[in-house]
């Protein structure tokens, strides 16, 4: 339940950050590439999408290093 009609107040459960992680709001269980399950516990969690994080399935900001190298 979000937004209540005003588009500027949209509050989606999943946000894909351009060139960055996927933000998850609320409680979720994320299964990683090895089949291990990780439960979210923060108000918002960031899931790695670049594949280079050292703390997968969570984001550790490494996508910024990759981005800098390719630009």
């Amino acid at each position, binding site marked *: 339940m979000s937004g209540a009609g005003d588009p500027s107040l949209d509050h989606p459960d999943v946000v894909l950050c351009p060139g960055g992680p996927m933000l998850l709001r609320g409680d979720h269980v994320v299964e990683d590439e090895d089949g291990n399950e990780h439960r979210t516990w923060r108000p918002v969690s960031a899931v790695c999408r670049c594949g280079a994080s050292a703390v997968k399935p*969570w984001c550790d900001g490494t996508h910024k290093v990759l981005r*800098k190298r390719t630009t």
Partner: protein
Amino acid sequence: MLMPESRGSLSEAVFRAMRTGETSGLAEAPPSDTAEDAQVTLWALYEQHYRGFEDVAGELEWDPQLIGVRRGLEQEFERTLRDRMPEVPEPDGFAEKFFDFVADHDGPSLAAHVHRKATEDQVHELLRHRTIYHLKEADHTTWVIPRLSDRVKAAVMELQFDEYGGGDPNLLHAHLFVRGLQDSGLNPEYGAYINEAPLEVLEENNAMSLFGLNRRLRAASLGFLAAFEATSSAPSRLMAQGLKRLGFPESMIEYYTEHVEADAVHEQLAVRTICGALLEEEPELHDDVYFGAFSALDLADRYAERMLTRWAA
């Protein structure tokens, strides 16, 4: 906490007035001798709005004479910070330009030094200096909350709730640092190391309070937050690895590993849902977001330069 030691003529006069409550003579207070004298005075005046001092009466928080001294020091400090500003990016495509601005800012890295070379004594010194901020971590941003629209306010709360442990004091970031200090044999008492804090630490903390306590600088406060979060994850990992190398207790390491993950979330929130949303509503605040952001980056550099020079690293 007791009042800090004075560091010059101005802090001596102001601190005496604060302890005795005799503030009427402050209109004729001497000018500051040095930047450090001015900054420690400003720091103590700001501290009255946080936890305060056991040896200063609570009524003095809003004493007109003390507020007058604070205003003078704030104006001078804000001018100094603004004079340091470089050109800022164009306002279009804010989030990507902001991340680029932060990524392109090259400064000396204390975390890289801790990672590979720092001695235990050097890290102890660093942690003592870090207590000045980490024991009230995130509090300066909380000042801004009532000054924001519903949308931006909720976005700041989403981040702050995580800083404050989601309501669990054991997970509150400042408290994780308390536990790390205790286990590392350092004094976790709030303000215990203020007399050791060098100019650059005072400036960094005062900039946070300056932006947090002045409504007109709300965008600078949120820009400071965004740059601070966007330069935290990778250095926090280096800090954690350095602390492990030196055999620091798990709780101190955990403080930094927590920030690897937390700040990878917070940087997205701070840049996109907080500063991005603020600028959609009030585009004229664009340059102030960068004022805060650059101040965060530059003040961290200044501290790193001082310590790396001091340690001949």
